[in-house]
């Protein structure tokens, strides 16, 4: 069973990745009203980057620079491995799936920081520090929200969380939780309003001094993380593989695709708040809100559960 799940994981990741690359090219064109680019464009971009010279800056931390995209990608894959693709179809069955995913979330901070640090240049370093400052409270929010999703299941495993949603999906229990989790999705895939590591105002932030294959690797890891976080959202809030008629895997794929499109669109439609102001918003508004959501779910289960 695990082997099938592992193969499914590869399939899911490649399909999801292709979809993410496509959505990432098409949606901005749609929003800006520009002519739609060809579906071949992401491949062409990749081919271009593969043939571009990798730049070395002055005295970089070469090892960390090389490892950062790999770590980021690995975290995305590990996160995906504890998600059930169908009834009993998990690559790594874990009773503490949420904890595994949570540590993947937290370690993205390390991956992004490594990447920005290693170039040994100011703008990438600012991007890296900024990401740490924003991502840390964002992780806290996501943990409260996920615990809220785990409470009804009385388990930290994703399979149990999905099964507990047979009566009612978690999105109904805590709609604000879904929105908060989508924000986290934008943050850990470095996207749009939560792209504090690689923004335009820092000339590309952590990527400002990266060229060629390394830049390609970073882009791939970012998209893989987008797929992963979409899959986790679909599992924790939208009932994962549950659904009538169609096989569970197909439902899971559809729900993930929906979340992914929402994330890409949100990344292009909402403005980014300057980091200092965002910090205030997260600590004083969003974090208490996630607390309240957790409290509400707890009370509901205590009184009527």
């Amino acid at each position, binding site marked *: 069973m695990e082997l099938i799940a592992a193969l499914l994981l590869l399939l899911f990741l490649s399909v999801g990745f292709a979809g993410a690359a496509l959505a990432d090219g098409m949606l901005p064109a749609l929003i800006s009203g520009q002519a739609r680019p060809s579906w071949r464009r992401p491949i062409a971009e990749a*081919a271009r980057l593969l043939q571009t010279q990798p730049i070395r800056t002055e*005295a970089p931390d070469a090892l960390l620079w090389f490892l950062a995209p790999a770590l980021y990608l690995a975290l995305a894959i590990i996160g995906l491995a504890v998600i059930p693709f169908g009834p009993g179809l998990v690559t790594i069955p874990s009773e503490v799936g949420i904890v595994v995913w949570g540590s993947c979330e937290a370690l993205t901070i390390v991956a992004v920081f490594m990447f920005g640090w290693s170039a040994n240049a100011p703008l990438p370093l600012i991007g890296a520090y900024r990401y740490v400052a924003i991502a840390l409270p964002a992780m806290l929010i996501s943990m409260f929200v996920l615990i809220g999703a785990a409470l009804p299941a009385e388990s930290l495993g994703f399979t149990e969380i999905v099964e507990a949603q047979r009566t009612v999906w978690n999105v109904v229990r805590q709609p604000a939780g879904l929105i908060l989790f989508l924000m986290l999705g934008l943050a850990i895939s470095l996207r749009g309003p939560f792209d504090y590591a690689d923004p335009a105002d820092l000339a590309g932030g952590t990527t400002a001094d990266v060229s060629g294959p390394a830049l390609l690797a970073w882009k791939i890891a970012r998209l893989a993380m987008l797929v992963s976080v979409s899959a986790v959202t679909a599992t924790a809030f939208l009932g994962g593989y549950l659904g009538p008629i169609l096989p569970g895997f197909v439902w899971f794929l559809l729900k993930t695709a929906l979340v992914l499109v929402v994330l890409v669109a949100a990344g292009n439609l909402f*403005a980014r708040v*300057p980091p200092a102001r965002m910090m205030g918003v997260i600590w004083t508004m969003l974090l208490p809100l996630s607390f309240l959501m957790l409290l509400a779910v707890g009370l509901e289960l205590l009184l009527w559960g």
Partner: protein
Amino acid sequence: MAVSALRKWAGEAPAPIFVAAGEEMRDRVELLFNDGRLVRAASPRHAAIFLIAGRMRLEDREDLRRLHDQMPHPRVTLLWEAEVGEALGEAERFTGSTLASDKDAGEARRLDEAVRDRLEGLWQELASGERPSEPDLLHDEPPNPWEGIGPHGQGGKGMMGGTPYGRPMAMTSDDLRDGLALDPYTARFGPFLPVFPPGLLLEMTLQGDVIQLAKVLRAPLRQAASDHAPEALLRLARLLDLLGLPALSQRARLAAGDRSSSTLEKLGRTIRWSGATLAIPPGLGALEGHADLRTRLNDLLAIAGGSSPATRPELPESAHLSSLLPGLEWSEAMLVLNSFDDKTLSMLAMVMNEPDEESDGHDHDGDHMHHDHGGHHDHGGSHNDHGGHQGEGGHEDQGDHSSHQSHEHHNRHGGHA
């Protein structure tokens, strides 16, 4: 075989272009990118084509050469009505037009289309390998001598003894924002940093991402005075880019090229819905008589929508970037820099001659950090200086183009507070 397949694919990618816009060319260059065949790179590291457009000052030539060398291979340069002498070597020139304002609109549009075609053609030649990549223009050498003495090559006696490559050990100093003292860091930013107005060269002391000191070394290059609505739309587009809304920014640029009231109305609504105005902290970048950034953004939306710009009073004498930027966090500062019209900005960014250029050398008093970078290795005009934090100062190997230094030996200091 595999290589030729890769080449074929790469040719289909949009041409990645890093731009250095000169006098009167900024708006025209920005409108070039309304075409999906071209994409503007945020950093020279991401580009393959270096487009130099318009007249440049003599002192900018050295920066252009450095930027050229910071681009990865394969790379090519196109000079578009640029007068840079022999600074860029044998780079291809695109001429055949004078300034857009001298010609009728149709003619200018045809010329812009020709430039786009040439840029795409250059990318095709480069991707297919027909055109060889351009070699370096400068020597790859450190700005200051290595001075490696001592057990860790720190250049002198003890921990803080030396300044290998002209960079001393990082030291903390007072902080403007929250009292968390970090090491201040002085570097030159510009003159072709994509988020800066073209030509602006600032020497800034940063602590973390907070600007402690800003000094204008070169003023922004003069830009063509165009009619209000397209100018406002392009300025709006620049602000939207900084606010993380590249798709809406592109829409504003497209609208600047081809304005119709229904698209403008829809664009305005989408921008309001994006929360762009709410995202900006109230009171940010406030200037007497010119309101704050949020109001200026709202004004831009109104002008873009067809209303005439409100007349603003003269700037107060004291208004200058050197007083406006300190205390701001980097991305707030970038928003402020891009929120002014060209006339206001040129007054805010006048070069002030300070007489203390010499006396600077005497305040070696340990409290300050003397970032003596000697020369600036500009990244897209961006980071002029690396290192400092790592203290090791091990020099790069041949692959590095970031550290090309100007040959004069500057003795600049972080601590001229």
